[in-house]
């Protein structure tokens, strides 16, 4: 069901008036998506959807807030949602009750998003069948591409409130995922994956995704066990960003206020990492395919420096956390069962110098981690510890040997302080921009 934002806005105001609700806000989105999967040259499953959803907040006469979300976006659904939120509002918190963002009507960034033509389903299928074929031909050991998907989505999102705020933006993206599996006599099956994202199908670099999946798979065919012990570990940009994301409570103001963080309000301005490390969250980064110009409370998004030369320099905020911590909202709020705060797109700055000591062509016995797995299970984000399986290699003077199976374990705060080197070259990933990062003294369990 497509959403007409002006109609939703008019209906919401009319129904609210009828129900005696004078203060409310509403965040919503409509998504149109299609995805295809193939199996051995044939289409296997095609999925398509056209769905909408809204979340409403209602303030009652006692200024406490209730919230309800619904996928019924017609007038009946909207009325039920407003009524239910009003009912829930009488159980809302009295202390630190949320309010409208003071920036809900502030100008948002004018971003010119690249656009392209949407592909037809047959085009998507043909492209994916071709990618599957090329991967199977890349090496005789690649027996199948069990997980594959080519998907395109377009999303319209909006925010409005009873004070007259009304804003919307749109974006679209196309994604490709290829994940191989190998079979070789006398060897264990191996697998590797690659993911590519773009604004549209015609800009999607399919060949890059195929090459990456093939290269990773082939490089893992000849594997060896690794001895357990302490190693210098080099994190790929993807691996470091996934770990950073798992411990994002470090700079999440809501988590800090809820005592669900490794930081406290007093952590701001303290050294939490090696002086080599600087991290920003930049929703508007030109390489961010999923740019959002405002958050769930209508606050404009922006670049925020989180860690500056190892010093914790800012938290990410909603309107509510900013008010409580005497700061500005930063455009990171999500309107959900409780207002939550989350990062958009990391930018870990590259190092400033090249040091010969930290060169994969000459370093001895270091471990390069390409991909960390099972973060949902192996990260204790409130304790700071992690123990995670990974895909990677032992690298000895430029010779790369795939590791059969191993885990890396440590304390994230210790890891941040044990960063020995940050390579100068920044690489673009789907969750941010980051160089390779060298960390000393991490525990690896192998044989």
């Amino acid at each position, binding site marked *: 069901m497509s959403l007409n934002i002006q109609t939703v806005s008019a209906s919401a105001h009319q129904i609210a008036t009828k129900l005696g609700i004078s203060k409310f806000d509403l965040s919503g989105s409509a998504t149109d998506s299609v995805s295809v999967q193939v199996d051995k040259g044939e289409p*296997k499953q095609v999925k398509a959807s056209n769905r909408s959803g809204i979340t409403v907040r209602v303030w009652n006469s006692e200024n406490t807030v209730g919230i309800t*979300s619904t996928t019924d976006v017609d007038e009946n659904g909207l009325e039920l949602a407003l009524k239910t939120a009003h009912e829930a509002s009488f159980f809302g918190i009295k202390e630190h009750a949320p309010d409208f963002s003071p920036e809900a009507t502030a100008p948002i960034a004018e971003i010119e998003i690249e656009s392209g033509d949407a592909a037809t389903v047959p085009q998507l299928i043909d492209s994916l069948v071709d990618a599957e074929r090329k991967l199977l031909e890349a090496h005789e050991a690649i027996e199948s591409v069990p997980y594959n998907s080519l998907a395109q989505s377009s999303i319209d999102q909006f925010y409005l409130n009873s004070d007259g705020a009304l804003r919307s933006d749109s974006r679209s993206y196309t994604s490709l995922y290829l994940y191989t599996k190998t079979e070789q006599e006398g060897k264990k099956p191996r697998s590797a994956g690659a993911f590519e994202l773009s604004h549209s199908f015609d800009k999607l670099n399919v060949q890059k995704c195929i090459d990456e999946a093939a290269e990773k798979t082939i490089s893992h065919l000849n594997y060896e066990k690794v001895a357990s012990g302490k190693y210098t570990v080099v994190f790929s940009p993807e691996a470091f960003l996934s770990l950073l994301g798992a411990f994002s409570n470090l700079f999440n103001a809501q988590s800090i206020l809820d005592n669900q963080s490794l930081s406290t309000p007093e952590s701001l301005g303290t050294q939490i990492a090696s002086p080599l490390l600087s991290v920003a969250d930049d929703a508007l980064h030109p390489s961010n395919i999923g740019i959002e110009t405002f958050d769930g409370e209508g606050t404009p998004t922006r670049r925020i420096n989180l860690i500056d030369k190892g010093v914790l320099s800012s938290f990410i905020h909603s309107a509510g956390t900013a008010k409580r911590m005497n700061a500005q909202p930063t455009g990171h709020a999500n309107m959900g069962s409780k207002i939550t705060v989350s990062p958009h797109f990391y930018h870990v700055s590259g190092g400033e110098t090249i040091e010969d000591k930290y060169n994969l062509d000459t370093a001895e016995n270091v471990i390069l981690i390409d991909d960390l797995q099972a973060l949902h299970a192996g990260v204790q984000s409130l304790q700071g510890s992690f123990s995670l399986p990974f895909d990677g290699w032992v690298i000895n003077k430029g010779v790369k040997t795939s590791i059969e199976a191993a885990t890396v374990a440590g304390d994230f705060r210790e890891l941040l302080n044990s960063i020995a080197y940050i390579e100068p070259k920044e690489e673009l990933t789907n969750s941010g921009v980051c160089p390779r990062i060298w960390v000393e003294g991490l525990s690896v369990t192998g044989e």
Partner: protein
Amino acid sequence: MTISIDPKTFLLSKQLPNLSYSATTHRFDETWEAPLSTLLGLGRAAGADFVEFFLERSNYISCLAEDDQITSISPRLSTGAGVRVFKGKADCYVSTNDLSFNGLKSALEKALGIMALHLPAPNSYVPEINLELLRDYATKKGKDSWLQECSSMREMGEVLLAANGKLKQTATHIQSRRAAYFRDWQEVLVASSDGTFARDIRLTQSVGYNLLCADGTNRSSIGQRVGDTSNPNFLTTWDYGATAEDVSESAGKMLYADYVESGTYPIIMANQFGGVIFHEACGHLLETTQIERNTTPFAEMKGQKIAHESLTAWDEGLSGNAFGTIDMDDEGMPAQRTLLIENGILKNFIADRAGSIRTGHPRTGSGRRNSYAYAAASRMRNTYIAPGEHHVDELFNSIEKGIYCKKMGGGSVGATGQFNFAVDEAYLIENGKITKPLKGATLIGEAKEIMNKISMCSADLGLAAGFCGSVSGSIYVTVGQPHIKVDSITVGGR
């Protein structure tokens, strides 16, 4: 004998735009038969081999108490439908929020178009599908009033605040206390071109604690929850006092635990949520979804030994009020009790409709999905290792040095059969006795190997509520087992 046919009784495709149906909007009942049988017939007339409609209405609410205040009460209302079209072994799934006749027809047309099937010409007959009499599990089992009988918002708040108050009394070094509850009410209707026409109401509830303790740089966090699928008064029956004592004791012990030393150990896994090892290391690999992708080592091993002879395992749709209990699956098939492994021999796979079409294994009532946004897939329900004959002490006495995994965290299994689990609460076993708490342990292994290393099962089967994420979204499941001994496993640590 002469048979005469009155052409006026047959529907022509050109009449579709003028049809007027009045299916009830607040309940999925018999009034949906006419529009759905018309749409299913339209799909078949277009050349689809099989068409299925899945209609869903849900009413979800969550409530969170943090320390001594309710910080969130959040209802979520949802209505939607999905239509699935099969042509040969390929299928297309289209979902929509629009449950009007035209909305459903539009979704069907989109699915047909994607499959390169076309609506019949204007003067073509549309063979309406003869649906069975509505198989209404909701009404037959007295579920229609469940939603009204559940706890009110006020009651949710009162119970959670009282529970958090109890935790304050039992725990020490508290950094934060959380008590959380959710109720997920779901009404579903399935109609398909093989005549399936079935309705059900599901009521899934869960409540539990998350306790974070800190003392200097030492930290521990323990979560524990219980779940239910058919008692509207479940929340008021929660024994939060006993749970608070249990959680507090665990958090207290783990606060000063040493990190586990990595290596290979024999382990004992506790009953109840310890069953996550079977769920991840074997259960997922018995889903036909994995056979379709060639990502299970067990695909060709039906009738062969895949596990230690001491191991028997089930996956069943009906286990009392257990968290994965369903009367029918999301494809309208009655839930089945499925013997997976008997004394180490692989007996059956877990199959949905698509899996059955693509692999030939019979359906088991295991087609499940998170919501109308997903096509159903073969998924587990209540899955557990059957009790054995040993006493728990016998398992401990058989270990000189090993690890007791009392509370498991989450886990996962990859495409090559490698699995891993986090252990939230572990203890060192020395000479058959528990000696000290350990933290930071991860269990790592290969599914095919570990199943042969489960050498002892005790008699104390216990079930636990869990959430399982996979191709058709997050669903409610039960994991379970008695205490089991694994002869050796790699433990990741420091």
